[in-house]
């Protein structure tokens, strides 16, 4: 594209270069983008105050002398300078910044022209994050990058303590030991996207194959390279973006109302051999919403109510978000700057509760040329997040309480003044309203200095230092919230904490990361050869420490300070961890005749996690490319604008499965959560061995193979790319099963193997019909995996076999990770004969009866059992599929008509199964637990003999009926309208009077619609047990103004 500008400019020169009328005259012209005339483009004469802007047809007229230079600028476009040699009519084509960026792709330790890329690298620009009511970059990237899967875990503002808000993954599983998330580098320094201001991002590159090998031992999960915005030289441009949104929860488990609840309870009692508690008379009272409670027929001291409380409605309402960003960009001859400030605040959807998140971002990206050869690039960012939550319980605890909350328990006591509770249930509204405010403050200071020296022509030295300091300061207060008896005669009990145990916990984290990198680049072109070589070294060090202290027995709940607590139960803990990694790296690229491309990477990494003699690992990568479109026989076809074939092979490492100091036998002191109370509750410590040591362990090595094709046809209107990859973890760390006689968890050994394979494809189309300009982009990616070798591990557990459950990790050789095992549900027993026949089988509960579940004796051994009798024999529980989502897709549609623009972005998963788990899996998982409304009227009962689900029961048969089986399988594929944006850009004429060069207003909705098959009220992206903080729909309006 740069070439096009050059050619156009040359044309202008050629055509009009002869004339030399040295007088000020009106220069006229038209400015367009690649398709249509551009309105509002600022035209100035360089060095003069005068200026003009283009009209609705893109025309302008400006007084200028031949020989002077015209500057054309507009937000979102690359600024152009055109020297006037002859009075004439100019035709200026503006290039979008995004387009300009697409031409150059950021890769490890350098950049590369897109056309010369040989690896699988995807790039997105700031465009995709624009004008969306999001405050987290990952939220905005979900579904935008082929091969990058982003899953959300909670909708809580600012996330939940100790739970990663987003699960990031590139190209499926890399290991069963973690390391599945990409290494994120912000301007070349490892960092986190959590608090980065999305508005400061210029581009994101994702390295997915051998191209990631340049980052060696930490690149197993791929690499994400984030580049922040730079200042544009020239007069300062001020841009303001503001957005305000109302949010509503998108879905949660639905609970029955009091009447439905009563009917379900009666059924469960009858089926458990107990009389129903709700007599017809009581049921009638429930139906009538009778406001007068009676003493509970079963539990002395309790009341039985007939009114209905919807606890979810009682605690969940609308949230609100606002977000403001302002930035100034400009610069002089030898410097440029980008200064930005951002503020956002999200008030969560829990009524009354302080579940809010506030964030401040400041950034200065300042570049300075000391001389023509020495350039300094500095980036300083300050991120400050203040998250608040309900202390001692957290918003997710309130959600849990609300779902647990009985529909027949009122929120308030008789007089409506005090909060009610009985029977051990809390009161979600009381917790939200009266709980103390906990604060979680995170502050990051990220500094990044890079000195670039042009030593001689072609030879460049880069020296970079990045230091990221991150600290957290948390204050969590568990306050005693009193709940009253119905008659308010006394306090029933306290929720969140008992008065003596009301506690204050202060926690502080501190982490410092230092990165020192130096590398030399040398590039030379001669004849048809184009060489580029880079070599360098880096050292990274990370220190993390954590400290907390807590007290209880506070004398007041008005003021909270550690000093005010009693000293009898003081605790304090700390943890310190550090790691370091030293690296050497090099890359050689060679291009012959613009057609044949070769790139080779090498990295040599040494890690502190190993003994010094087994610390170093070598990670090579090589890739080749062939630009077919440069070949005459393709050119002759006249069809392809661009056509390229690519192939790559590379190795990356993973050290995530290895502890920081695993090569030493350590003793844990104080690792028990509570001291064993000898004597009068003494706080005696205990010591135990910290695992078993292995000195023979080393990195996991991943081998990435990739082939790809990129093509552009039909005059650039249709673009297509496709990549197929195979990733093998050759020496994966696996636990080898030994007999339990060992008495300890054996150390992992490098003897496993995981294979992951899949594809990514992207298809883009852009065109214009009349005044309507539109573009459509589709991306689709898939990754599957198989645990090829897991030490012969042939066992499995009923339910999810996953390594995410650290307390019960399971993976079975030959299956994918996250495989679900269950019995084959064989319907509900509906007749005596069916029952008698089924009871012939072994392993069937003795109290089974009509209405209960039947499972298939798949191996025909006459009993229903998890395993076969002998090793290798099949049991009746079988592989029901993997939970790994398949076929992730994104659809982007953009339409522009006159001043209006419309953006539609949908994201989804075409194949996904989940299984109902926990309380969703079973109605009445405990008698004190509400059954999900989902089961209402769907379970077998005497009057519903054909119902699809087994009977309701309080007996242990319930666990049998609703154990993991095909009955619990759900198709959880979904498509979700992630963003819908409708904008209007004001005509320049009006704006000019207000010194505004560009103004746009828009409506932008996030997550506003979805299609899926998950029943029962759940959000398709939510957890299957139903306790997560709900995700929200954002309905927002905003304004973008440039001065």
């Amino acid at each position, binding site marked *: 594209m740069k070439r096009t500008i050059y050619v156009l400019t040359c044309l202008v020169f050629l055509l009009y270069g002869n004339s030399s009328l040295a007088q000020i005259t009106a220069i006229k012209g038209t400015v367009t983008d690649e398709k249509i005339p551009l309105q509002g483009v600022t035209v100035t004469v360089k060095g003069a105050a005068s200026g003009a802007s283009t009209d609705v047809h893109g025309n302008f007229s400006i007084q200028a002398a031949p020989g002077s230079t015209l500057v054309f600028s507009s937000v979102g476009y690359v600024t152009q300078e055109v020297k006037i040699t002859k009075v004439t009519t100019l035709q200026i084509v503006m290039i979008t910044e995004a387009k300009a960026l697409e031409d150059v792709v950021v890769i490890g330790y350098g950049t590369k022209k897109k056309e010369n890329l040989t690896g699988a690298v995807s790039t997105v620009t700031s465009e995709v994050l624009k004008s969306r009511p999001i405050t987290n970059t990952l939220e905005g990237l979900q579904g935008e990058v082929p091969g990058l899967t982003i899953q959300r875990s909670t909708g809580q503002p600012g996330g939940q303590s100790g739970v990663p808000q987003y699960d990031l993954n590139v190209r499926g599983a890399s290991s069963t030991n973690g390391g599945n998330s990409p290494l994120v580098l912000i301007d070349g320094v490892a960092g986190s996207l959590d608090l980065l201001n999305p508005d400061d991002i210029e581009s994101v590159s994702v390295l997915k194959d051998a191209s990631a090998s340049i980052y060696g031992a930490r690149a197993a999960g791929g690499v994400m390279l984030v580049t922040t915005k730079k200042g544009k030289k020239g007069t300062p441009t001020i841009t303001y973006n503001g957005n305000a949104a109302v949010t509503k929860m998108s879905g949660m488990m639905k609970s029955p109302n009091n009447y439905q609840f009563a009917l379900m309870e009666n059924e469960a009692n009858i089926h458990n051999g107990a009389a129903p508690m709700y007599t017809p008379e009581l049921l009638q009272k429930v139906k009538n919403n009778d406001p007068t409670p009676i003493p509970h027929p079963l539990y002395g001291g309790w009341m039985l109510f007939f009114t209905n409380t919807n606890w979810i409605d009682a605690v969940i309402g609308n949230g609100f978000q606002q977000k403001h960003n302002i930035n100034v960009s400009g610069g002089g001859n030898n410097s440029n700057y980008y200064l930005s400030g951002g503020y956002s605040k999200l008030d969560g959807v829990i009524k009354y509760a302080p579940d809010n998140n506030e964030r401040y971002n400041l950034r200065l990206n300042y570049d300075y040329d000391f001389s023509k050869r020495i350039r300094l690039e500095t980036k300083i960012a300050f991120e400050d997040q203040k998250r608040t939550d309900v202390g001692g319980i957290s918003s997710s605890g309130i959600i849990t309480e609300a779902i647990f909350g009985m529909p027949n328990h009122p929120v308030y006591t008789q007089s409506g003044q005090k909060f009610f509770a009985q029977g*051990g249930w809390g009161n979600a509204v009381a917790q939200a309203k009266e709980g103390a405010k906990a604060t979680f403050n995170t502050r990051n200071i990220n500094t990044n200095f890079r000195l670039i020296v042009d030593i001689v022509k072609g030879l460049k030295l880069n020296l970079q230092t990045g230091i990221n300091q991150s600290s957290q300061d948390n204050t969590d207060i568990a306050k005693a919230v009193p709940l009253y008896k119905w008659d308010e005669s006394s306090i029933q009990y306290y929720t969140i904490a008992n008065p003596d145990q009301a506690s204050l916990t202060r926690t502080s984290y501190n982490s410092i990361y230092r990165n020192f990198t130096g590398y030399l680049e040398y590039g030379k072109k001669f004849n048809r050869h184009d060489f580029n070589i880079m070599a360098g070294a880096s050292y990274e*060090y990370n220190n993390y420490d954590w400290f907390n202290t807590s007290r209880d027995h506070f004398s007041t709940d008005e003021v909270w300070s550690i000093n005010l607590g009693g000293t009898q139960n003081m605790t304090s803990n700390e943890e310190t961890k550090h790691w370091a990694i030293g690296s*050497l790296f090099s890359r050689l690229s060679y291009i012959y005749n613009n057609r044949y491309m070769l790139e080779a990477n090498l990295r040599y990494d040494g890690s502190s996690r190993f003994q010094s003699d087994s610390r170093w690992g070598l990670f090579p990568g090589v890739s080749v490319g062939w630009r077919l479109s440069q070949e005459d026989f393709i050119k002759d076809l006249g069809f392809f604008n661009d056509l390229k074939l690519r192939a790559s092979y590379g190795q990356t490492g993973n050290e995530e499965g290895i502890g920081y100091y695993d090569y030493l036998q350590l003793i844990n002191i104080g690792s028990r959560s509570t001291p064993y109370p000898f004597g009068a509750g003494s706080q005696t410590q205990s010591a135990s061995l910290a695992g078993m040591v292995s000195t023979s362990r080393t990195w996991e090595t991943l081998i990435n193979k990739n082939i790809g094709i990129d093509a552009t046809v039909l005059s650039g209107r249709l673009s297509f790319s496709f990549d197929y990859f195979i990733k093998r973890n050759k020496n994966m760390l696996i636990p080898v099963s030994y007999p*339990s006689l060992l008495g300890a968890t054996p150390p992992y050994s490098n003897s496993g193997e995981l294979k992951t394979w899949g594809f990514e494809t992207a298809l883009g189309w852009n065109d214009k019909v009349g005044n309507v300009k539109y573009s459509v982009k589709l991306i689709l990616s898939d990754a599957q995996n198989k645990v090829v070798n897991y030490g012969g591990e042939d066992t499995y557990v009923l339910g999810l076999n996953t390594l995410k459950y650290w307390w019960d990790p399971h993976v079975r050789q030959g299956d994918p990770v996250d495989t679900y095992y269950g019995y084959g549900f064989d319907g509900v027993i509906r007749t005596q004969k069916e029952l008698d026949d089924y009871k012939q089988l072994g392993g069937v509960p003795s109290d089974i009866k009509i209405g209960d579940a039947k499972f298939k004796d798949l191996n025909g051994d006459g009993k229903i059992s998890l395993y076969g009798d002998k090793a290798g024999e099949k049991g009746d529980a079988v592989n029901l599929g993997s939970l790994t989502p398949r076929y992730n897709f994104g659809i982007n549609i953009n339409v522009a008509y006159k001043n209006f623009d419309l953006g539609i972005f949908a994201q989804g998963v075409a194949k996904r199964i989940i299984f109902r788990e926990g309380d969703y899996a079973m109605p009445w998982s405990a008698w004190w637990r509400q059954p999900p409304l989902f089961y209402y009227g769907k379970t077998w009962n005497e009057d519903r003999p054909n119902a699809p689900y087994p009977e309701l029961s*309080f007996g242990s048969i319930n666990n049998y009926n609703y154990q993991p089986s095909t009955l619990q399988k759900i198709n959880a594929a979904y498509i979700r309208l992630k963003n819908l944006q409708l904008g209007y850009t004001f005509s320049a004429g009006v704006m000019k009077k207000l010194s505004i060069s560009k103004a746009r207003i828009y409506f932008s909705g996030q997550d506003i619609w979805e299609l899926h098959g998950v029943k029962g009220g759940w959000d398709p992206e939510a957890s299957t047990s139903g306790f997560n903080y709900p995700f929200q729909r954002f309905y927002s309006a905003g304004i973008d103004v440039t001065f």
Partner: protein
Amino acid sequence: MIRILNKYKYFFLILVLTGCKKSLDQLPEDQISDASFWKTPGHFQLAANDFYYGLKQVPVYTDNNSDIAFGAGANSVSDGSYLATANSTVWDNAYNGIRSTNYLLKKAQESTLGTDIDRWVGEALFFRAYNYWNLVESFGGVPKIDKVLDVTSRELYTARSSQSEIIDFMLDDLENAANKLPKQSELTSDEIGRTTQGAALALKARVALFMGTWAKYHNDGDAAKYINIAVDAAEKIVASGEYALYTDKGADSYKYLFILEGDDSKEVLLARRYYINRITHNWTRELWFNYMVPTKNLADMYLATDGLPIDKSPSFQGYNTLTSEFQNRDPRMSMTFIVPGSSIFFEGGLMQPTYPGFSGSNATHTGYMIRKFLDETLEATQFQGEYDFKEFRYGEVLLILAEALYEKNGQISDLDLDRTINVLRNRVSMPALTNAQVTTNGLNMLDEIRRERTVELAFEGFRRDDLRRWKTAETVLPQALGGVKFVGTEYQQRYPDLNVGTDIQVDNNGFIIAESAGSRQFLPKHYLDPIPLQQVQLSKGTLTQNEGW
């Protein structure tokens, strides 16, 4: 150019390989390495502290697996419908515990600290035996591991020793432990709760009686040898004078022994400790909701106040009212069962009159309700029970002594009865058990000793083991589990909405049937539990499965 590059490359190489080499050596700053540990007796004590987390924890619903208790539904172990499982936490936890104790013992052997660490060696020996006890009572003989194993150790594939070999090994450990451990009275106040000579002897007596009676009734080993050891160990505890029954609460002492009041009393040899703000449990609330209720089998076992079984006693009041069967009975009955209408400590500290619920989610399936282990603290009603679980108590020691003496001699003297069973009876003001009384009333002394044991230790987790070692499980366990008499009694008047035959099941005499005999079985294989299947698979053929599984 390449030369320059090379030069720089070396420069970087040197920078990384030398300058930063040290920087790649990162040592932990918040943990101690094994090499610098085990230097002082205090270190050994810290390691020994960790063993206590292996003691039996509450809530325990163990007795739901027997004939005297019933839970929320049928119990597959109790009714004999259970299958072998892939893995067993009993198995895994025991061998984990054994490794920890072996590790300490190994470090002690290598140590130069000498007798300064004797006590911690004693604790390790005690807990090694305790872990083997958990294995033996379930599985019988198991592989004997007496050293720290590595993944390459051949001993990982040790075959099972016989039950008596394992028990011999434990008895040795316990004898050594008893010699190294302090007496109860020698514990400082900070050490209360640590294991003692008395606890080691108590475990020894328990294990020896188990093996002795097992050998006798299963005709499998030298019964006399083990019974003698049991007598001997129990006698030593009695003779030490360190322990006595808890009597601080007078007539109610039996009730209060098991909750907070009885903590650290003279009767406790070793308990799993709980403490407010440290470790608490929620057993009381769970028991309120009938997670474990007594059965008719247990109810009928309580003697009448005249010392006679109910079928022989004229003072037995029958089943006609809610409370009639509780009248004139061994007072332990109303301290183990909730007598309908009596008050129990409830939410908010109320004394709440309590009746059985036959409907609703927490219906009692037998009509009985449990009172033993119900705490009387406000904390307990708020999910924070803090009383200890007294696994080793003097009451058990007296019962072991009585049973072992009888098994040893085929009879027991009145003198011996007076210093064992009658001590327990005396606490609850029950008439003494004498040979004369047994003869006069056509009773059987062994049955009476066993009755006393079952009644005294109800819900403490002994019943299934007892039935197995007495080899009576095959007759007791297949019987129906019953409850209160419902038909034609005050129960039916009080609960007129309950439909017999649909809401509740009853037998021909109108007694509630929680689980019918037809649903229950006890096969010969059930005398031992199955070895976890996965362990059999991993053993390279060395671990044999128990017969019948």
